[in-house]
C-alpha cells in the first residue's frame, strides 16, 4: 500500500495541470497522457449504465475527460474493468466496452477486480450503486446493493492480500449498521475510503465557503426530490459547510422528521425554539434559488406567500436535527416550489445569513457539471490514497437519512441518535469547484 500512495506522486500531479496548459499540442495530448507513467487502473462496480445514470456521468468522465481549469482534461485513470449488476434497455456499458479497447466487462465483482487473472489487478475501485431496478422497503428506501458490492470488494482484497482505494458514490448504504460496518472495515484494513455526493463540491452561486472555525448557530437547506435520495444530497450540502465550524464535527444528538401539515406548523412556529426554524434562513434559501416556481400565473419570479407554499407544495418534508454541540439544522424538501438545492446559515454576530446555491446545471439537456469535480477528486484520491474529505461526513449523512426515514415511519417522532456521535475534523482548504480550483 504505502508505495502506491507516495506524497511525491501527489505533488507531481498537482503541478501537472499548469505546466500542461500550454506545453502540449492538444492534438497529441490524449496519446501522450496514455503513455505517461503513473496512470492508475480502475475497476467500476455499478448497478446500471444508462444515459444520465450515475455510472454514466461518472465513468464517461474518466473515459472521455471533461472541462477543467480551462481545458478538456483527461484524468490519469484507465477504466479497465466493469461489473454491471443490471443490463437494462438503454444500457451503454457494452457500447463503451466496444469503443474503449482497455475496458472489459466481467460477470462477477471478483473477476472485475482481478481483471480475469489471479491477482488484484486494479489500483482503485469505484462503487456506483445508484439507479437500476431494485426493491424498495416499507420506509421508501431503495435497496441499492452498495454494501454488497463493498463486501465482495473486501473479500477480493482479503483473497489477494492487498487493498486499494475505494470510492463509494452517494450514501454508504440504506442500512445504518451496514454503513457503520463499511467505515469500520475500511479503517481496520487501512483501505483509503472516499464517499458521498457531488453536491458539496460543485459550483456555488455565490462562490462562498463557510469560514473555517466559524461559530454557526443554525443552518437550513431547501431541496427537492424524495427521502432516501435527494435528502442525502441536501444533508451533505449542509454537512460540508457546517463541518468547518469551530470545534469541528462532534456528531448529531437527535433528529425529528416532519411531513405534510407538521411542516407548515413548524414553519408557522417562526423559530427553532418554538419548533420551527429561523425564517430569515428560509427566505435566504428561496432567494438563492434559480428555480423558484412562480407562485402566480403571468409572473416569472415572485416571492411566495404562506398560502402559496401550502398550495404549491403537496408533500413537504422537514428533518429538524440538533448537533451535539448545540448547532440546529433543518433540511426541507419542497417539491413544487424549487428545482435546486440552496443552503443558508446563521453565524454568530453576523446580521445577514451566509447563503448559497449548490449549482447542479440547469436542465436535463445540459452536462451535469457537478460530476467534473467529483471525478477530479476521485483521480486525486486514487493517486494519493487520501480522501479529499473524511468519509465520516458521509457516514454521518447516511445516518441522518436512515434516522429521517425512521422518524417519518414513526409519525414524526423525535429520535435520539447516540450512534451519530461521529467526530471528525476538516482543514481550512476548500474542496468545492471555484475559480482557483477547476
Amino acid at each position, binding site marked *: 500500500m504505502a508505495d502506491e500512495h507516495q506524497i511525491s506522486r501527489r505533488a507531481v500531479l498537482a503541478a501537472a495541470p499548469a505546466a500542461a*496548459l*500550454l506545453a502540449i499540442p*492538444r*492534438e497529441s*495530448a*490524449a496519446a501522450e497522457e496514455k503513455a505517461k507513467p503513473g496512470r492508475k487502473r480502475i475497476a467500476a462496480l455499478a448497478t446500471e449504465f444508462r*444515459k*444520465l445514470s450515475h455510472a*454514466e*456521468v461518472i465513468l*464517461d468522465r474518466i*473515459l*472521455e*475527460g*471533461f*472541462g*477543467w*481549469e*480551462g*481545458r*478538456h*482534461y483527461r484524468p490519469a485513470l484507465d477504466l479497465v474493468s466493469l461489473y454491471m449488476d443490471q443490463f437494462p434497455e438503454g444500457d*451503454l456499458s457494452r*457500447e463503451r466496452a466496444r469503443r474503449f479497447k482497455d475496458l472489459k466487462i466481467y460477470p462477477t465483482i471478483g473477476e472485475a477486480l482481478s481483471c480475469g487473472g489471479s491477482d488484484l489487478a486494479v489500483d482503485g475501485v469505484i462503487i456506483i450503486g445508484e439507479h437500476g431496478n431494485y426493491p424498495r422497503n416499507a420506509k421508501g428506501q431503495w435497496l441499492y446493493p452498495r454494501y454488497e458490492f463493498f463486501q465482495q470488494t473486501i473479500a477480493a482484497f482479503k483473497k489477494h492480500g492487498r487493498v486499494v482505494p475505494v470510492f463509494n458514490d452517494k450514501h454508504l448504504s440504506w442500512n445504518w449498521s451496514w454503513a457503520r460496518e463499511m467505515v469500520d472495515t475500511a479503517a481496520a484494513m487501512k483501505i483509503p475510503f472516499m464517499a458521498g455526493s457531488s453536491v458539496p463540491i460543485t*459550483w456555488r*452561486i*455565490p*462562490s*462562498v465557503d463557510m469560514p473555517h472555525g466559524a461559530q454557526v448557530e443554525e443552518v437550513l437547506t431547501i431541496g427537492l426530490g424524495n427521502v432516501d435520495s435527494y435528502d442525502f444530497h441536501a444533508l451533505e450540502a449542509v454537512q460540508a459547510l457546517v463541518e468547518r465550524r469551530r470545534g469541528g464535527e462532534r456528531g448529531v444528538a437527535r433528529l425529528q422528521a416532519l411531513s405534510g401539515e407538521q411542516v407548515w406548523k413548524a414553519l408557522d412556529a417562526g423559530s427553532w425554539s418554538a419548533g420551527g426554524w429561523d425564517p430569515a434562513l428560509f*427566505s*435566504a434559501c*428561496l*432567494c*438563492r*434559488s*434559480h*428555480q*423558484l416556481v*412562480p407562485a402566480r400565473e*403571468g*409572473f*416569472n*419570479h*415572485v*416571492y411566495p406567500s404562506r398560502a402559496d407554499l401550502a398550495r404549491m407544495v403537496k408533500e413537504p418534508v422537514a428533518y429538524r436535527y440538533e448537533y451535539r454541540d448545540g448547532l440546529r439544522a433543518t433540511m426541507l424538501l419542497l417539491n413544487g416550489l424549487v428545482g435546486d438545492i440552496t443552503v*443558508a446559515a446563521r453565524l454568530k454576530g453576523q446580521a*445577514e*445569513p451566509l447563503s448559497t446555491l449548490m*449549482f447542479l*446545471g*440547469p*436542465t436535463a*439537456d*445540459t*452536462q451535469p*457539471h457537478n460530476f467534473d469535480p467529483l471525478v477530479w477528486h476521485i483521480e486525486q484520491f486514487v493517486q494519493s490514497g487520501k480522501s479529499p474529505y473524511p468519509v465520516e461526513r458521509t457516514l454521518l449523512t447516511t445516518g441522518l437519512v436512515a434516522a429521517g426515514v425512521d422518524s417519518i415511519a414513526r409519525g414524526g417522532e423525535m429520535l435520539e441518535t447516540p450512534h451519530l456521535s461521529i467526530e471528525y475534523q476538516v482543514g481550512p482548504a476548500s474542496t468545492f*469547484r*471555484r*475559480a482557483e480550483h*477547476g
Partner: protein
Amino acid sequence: MAEPSTAKRKRLAIVATVWKHLSHAQHMGDRFLVGYPRDGAWHRPAIDVVSLYVDQRPEGDQSDERAREFGFKVYPTIAEALRAGGGKLAVDGVLVIGEHGDYPTNAKGQIQYPRYEFFEQIVRVFEEDGRAVPVFNDKHLSYSFDKASRMVAASKRLKFPLLAGSSLPVTWRLPSVEMPYGAAVDEALMVGVGSSDAMDFHALEAMQSMLERRRNGETGVKAVQLIQGPAVWQAGKDGRWSRELLEAALSRSQSRSGKGLEDGRTQDLTHSGELEELVREPAAYLIEYRDGLRATLLMLNGAVGDYTFACRLKDGARVLSTQFLLPITPNVVYSACLMSKAEQMFETGVAPYPAERTQLVCGILDFCLESKVRGNRRLDTPELAVKYRAPEQSLFCGAGGV
C-alpha cells in the same frame, strides 16, 4: 407593494415595445413591482412605477392588468407617460425596454426596434420641460451605430445618466472571475449561440465587459469582418482565431450536443472534429481593436447553448476562461442582476458603467452585419474610435462572493 409610499420614493416611467409574459418588459419591469432576489434576500425597490407606455398590444398583453394591480396608468404616448398625465416631467427615471414585438427587419437582418425613436421622444420631453432624469435602455441602444451615438451624445448634452446594454456583463459567472484591471490582453475569444442581431449582441457585450478593463482602457475598434461557413474553420487554421482559446471557452460550456445529447458522453469538441460536424453554419466576428488587440466571437449554433469566454493574458501567457451564466426560464435571474444596476442608477443618479460600452458594441455589431452583406469583407471602422474607461470595481453578480 408592502412598503408605504414616502416622499423619498422615486417615481419611474416604463417605456416598452410590448409587455407580455416572459418578455423583457415583463421580467425586468416586474422587478420594480414585486421585487427581486438580491444578495440572498428579497429586495423591494423603494421605487414606484407610476406610468407605462407600450408601443404594441399583442395577444397576451399584460399592461392593463399590471396597471390595475399596481396602481399606475398606461398612457397613449411616451410624453404623457413621462409627465404622468400632467403638464411637466413627473418621474425620476425612465426604463426603456425595446425588445420583442412586431417590427420590420432590414437588409442586414437587424430587427428595427424603435429604441432610438423612444429615446428621441424622451429627450424631447426633457428639453421641453427643462429637466432630465436617468434613463435605462435595455440591450443595444439602437441597431444603428449612428443612432446609438446620437443617444449617447444627447445624454452628455443634457447631462443625464444613461445606462444600457445586456444582462450578460452583470450576470453570474462560472467560475466567478474578472479580468484583472489593467491586464495586458493578448487575444480573446467568445463563444455564443442564437440568432443574429439578438444573441450576438449579448455575446459581444459580454466580451467587451471583460476587454474594456485592459491596459490603457478602451480606445475603440479599427476594423471588423464577419465570416461564415467553412471560412470560419479555415480562419482558425490560419491563426486568425485561437483554437487553444476555443478549447478553454468550451471547457466552460455545459452544453450537450451530438453524441453527448444522444447518450450522455462528455466530448472534447475542439479536437475531435465533432465541432465541424455539429455546426453547419458557423460565423466568426473578427474584431481588430485600435490598440492591436484581436478578439473573435464565434457563433456556434448546433454545438452549444451557452455563452463562454476565454482570453490569453500576456503576463505568463495565462489563459482566463469563464461562462456567462444565463439562469433558466422562468426566473431568468440574470435580469435581476441587470435591474439592480438600473435601480442603483435611479437611486444614485450615477450610471454604474459607461454607456459607451454599449455604444461601441452597437457599432461592432452594426459594422459586422455590414461586412456580412458586403460579401464578408473586412471593413475599416474609423467611426468606432470610441474611447472610455471602465470602472475598476467588478459589478457582476457574485463579484466579491455576494
